[in-house]
């Protein structure tokens, strides 16, 4: 005789437990994966660019947006890559885009140099390098050449019109390159993580000379009065005399961490922020430290001189106004930005534009330290 099986309460209880267990694991896995993925995903720290009343800014990871000035506000123009385009994935932009009359050039963390139509935001051409692009691009308007340094250790010279590689390029260094190539006339200076500063012929890509610094060069180099100033991974700030092709300072200043921010040179003073949270004012001629200012947090962004005030932004978004001559604090914006800030501040009329890691855009009055959030129209 056939019997109808009754539900076994023990089995159903066990099944219920299994389901709860499975759900708990699923939730835990989602949380861990999200945490790990968040920790590993690039966000970028490209500063905005303002050109002819147009604003080009990357407020979302791997996206570049353009806005036009309208009265006191902004009008959305385009976004690159456009929504739904899965073939173009720059991941993140670390360097400010190069803006010309017709095109925008930007290096993506996916290792690709993108040329975008300035009016429409459409892709004009792309060029793939062999590694992520962290260094900002350099541009020579005279020859129409875009220089891109990649983490694959190579410097590429591209025709700005069609993205083709110039003859004689790329130039290969011993390690990755995270610093912007520095163009001065017909010479391109490249600071590499292999610890050398290279001087290249900007046309042919051939090496003119190089200087062994000793430790990986990490900051964007800056040229002033025949001296190139650059920060290295051994926590020192180095100066290279271009004419002598040799290190200039007998005792390069050493900090507690890396000089990753591009130094700012004004007159005979180098303002160099450090990831130890200190801003060093150093004499350009001999490297002696004139004054220091200690911020609350590490500083990765380049400082900006607005009038007599040196504007410094630390990693946690605290903005300081310093007396450029003495390093004394004039004001601070605490707690204005309430977000991480790694991008360089840029001048905007008599104000300063600041961006934060979570897509905040701020306008700073360097006279008073007042900060105002800018709300851009959504695409």
């Amino acid at each position, binding site marked *: 005789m056939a019997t109808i099986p009754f539900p076994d309460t023990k*089995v159903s209880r066990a099944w219920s437990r299994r389901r709860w*267990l*499975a759900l708990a694991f699923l939730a835990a896995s989602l949380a861990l*994966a999200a945490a790990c*993925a968040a*920790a590993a995903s690039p966000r970028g720290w490209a500063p905005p660019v303002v050109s002819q009343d147009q604003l080009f800014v990357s407020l979302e990871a791997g996206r570049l947006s353009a806005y036009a000035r309208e009265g006191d506000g902004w009008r959305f123009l385009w976004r690159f890559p456009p929504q739904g385009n899965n073939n173009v994935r720059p991941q993140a932009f670390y360097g400010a885009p190069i803006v010309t009359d017709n095109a925008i050039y930007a290096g993506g963390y996916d290792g690709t140099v993108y040329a975008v139509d300035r009016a429409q935001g459409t892709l004009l051409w792309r060029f793939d390098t062999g590694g992520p692009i962290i260094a900002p691009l350099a541009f020579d308007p005279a020859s129409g050449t875009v220089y891109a340094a990649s983490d694959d250790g190579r410097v590429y010279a591209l025709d700005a019109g069609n993205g083709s590689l110039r003859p004689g390029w790329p130039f290969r260094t011993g390690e990755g390159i995270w610093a912007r190539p520095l163009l001065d006339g017909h010479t391109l200076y490249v600071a590499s993580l292999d610890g050398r500063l290279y001087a290249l012929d900007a046309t042919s890509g051939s090496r003119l000379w190089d200087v062994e610094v000793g430790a990986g060069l990490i900051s964007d180099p800056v040229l002033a009065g025949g001296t190139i100033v650059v920060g290295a991974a051994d926590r020192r700030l180095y100066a290279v005399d271009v004419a002598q092709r040799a290190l200039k300072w007998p005792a390069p200043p050493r900090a507690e*961490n890396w000089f990753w921010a591009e130094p700012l040179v004004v007159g005979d003073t180098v303002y160099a922020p450090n990831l130890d949270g200190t801003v060093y004012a150093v004499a350009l001629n001999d490297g002696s430290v004139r004054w220091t200012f200690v911020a609350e947090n590490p500083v990765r962004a380049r400082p900006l001189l607005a009038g007599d005030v040196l504007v410094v932004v630390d990693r946690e978004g605290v903005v300081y106004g310093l007396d450029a001559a003495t390093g004394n604090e004039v004001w601070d914006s605490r707690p204005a930005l309430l977000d991480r800030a790694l991008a360089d501040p840029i001048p905007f009329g008599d104000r300063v534009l600041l961006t934060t890691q979570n897509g905040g855009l701020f306008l700073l009055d360097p006279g008073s330290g007042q900060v105002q959030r800018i709300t851009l129209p959504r695409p």
Partner: protein
Amino acid sequence: MSGSVQETVARAQGALGRRLPAILLGLVVVAIFATVQAGRDPWHTLFVDPLINFLVLFNNVLLGQFGLAIILFTVFMRLLTLPLTVRQFQSTKAMSAIQPKVQEIQKKYKDPKRRQEELMKLYREAGVNPLGCLMPMLIQFPVWIALYRALIVLVGGVPEAVVDLSQHLYPWPYLYSAIPLEQHFLWLNLGRPDTTFVLPILVGVTTYLQQKVSTTSSVATSPEQQQMNQTLNLMMPLMFTWFTLAVPSGLGLYWLVSNIISVGISYFVYGRRGIDWRRVLLPFPEPATTARGAGKPTSAKRGEHERRRRGKR
């Protein structure tokens, strides 16, 4: 005379071994207190930063091969926590050995209070602490979590992670001059997920083996526990395969090496005969009894038989 000295030494070693987790826990509590008093973040100061700097040190010693550094570091960390892991496995093994008696008591005594008393008596007589397998595991948890955090900071590879990393390095030129670390190892970019699926599959397979070895070596007390083991055996490999697809390969490499070491430790603790390899390699457990094979011994029975045989020996 020498026998009594040996006995004394053995007793002292046994006492130290029993108290080792408590001693370690006490030291950690004191260190945390001291760090807080010094105004520093104890989590990073005591756990994450030392691990990060050790990893960078290994990287330098191995000539900048960060993949090898992760492997060596994993082996080093597992060796460091080996006494705790072995204790945990031994406690699990001892608990498994008395499971038939536990089941007997659970069947025999319906009154929960009496049942509990009898169980405690059994544990006392067998010299087993039911929480013995938990304590070493609890102590290892902070190490594992700190290790994950250290690896995520180190192999993140993205510039933001390098900025964070700069805050964790000790002020020794030998360490901080080594940054950024070489991210390529074999076919892997240690800072990015492995898109070839090789590493995720290897991690999944080794997690499965590790789970099966640890669950087949113990006797499940009830059908619920058996089902829970079954769920774990399937869920854990799937979960870790999925993780490995999403996280930097450096972390996947750590899991792979760690799993292999865990299987090795299980083999060392349970012995060749203690692990039922047929059950390990079968994706699903064989049914307890079948119409045809009713007389055949089940795996659990075989395990019991094996234990008795070894007991006689």
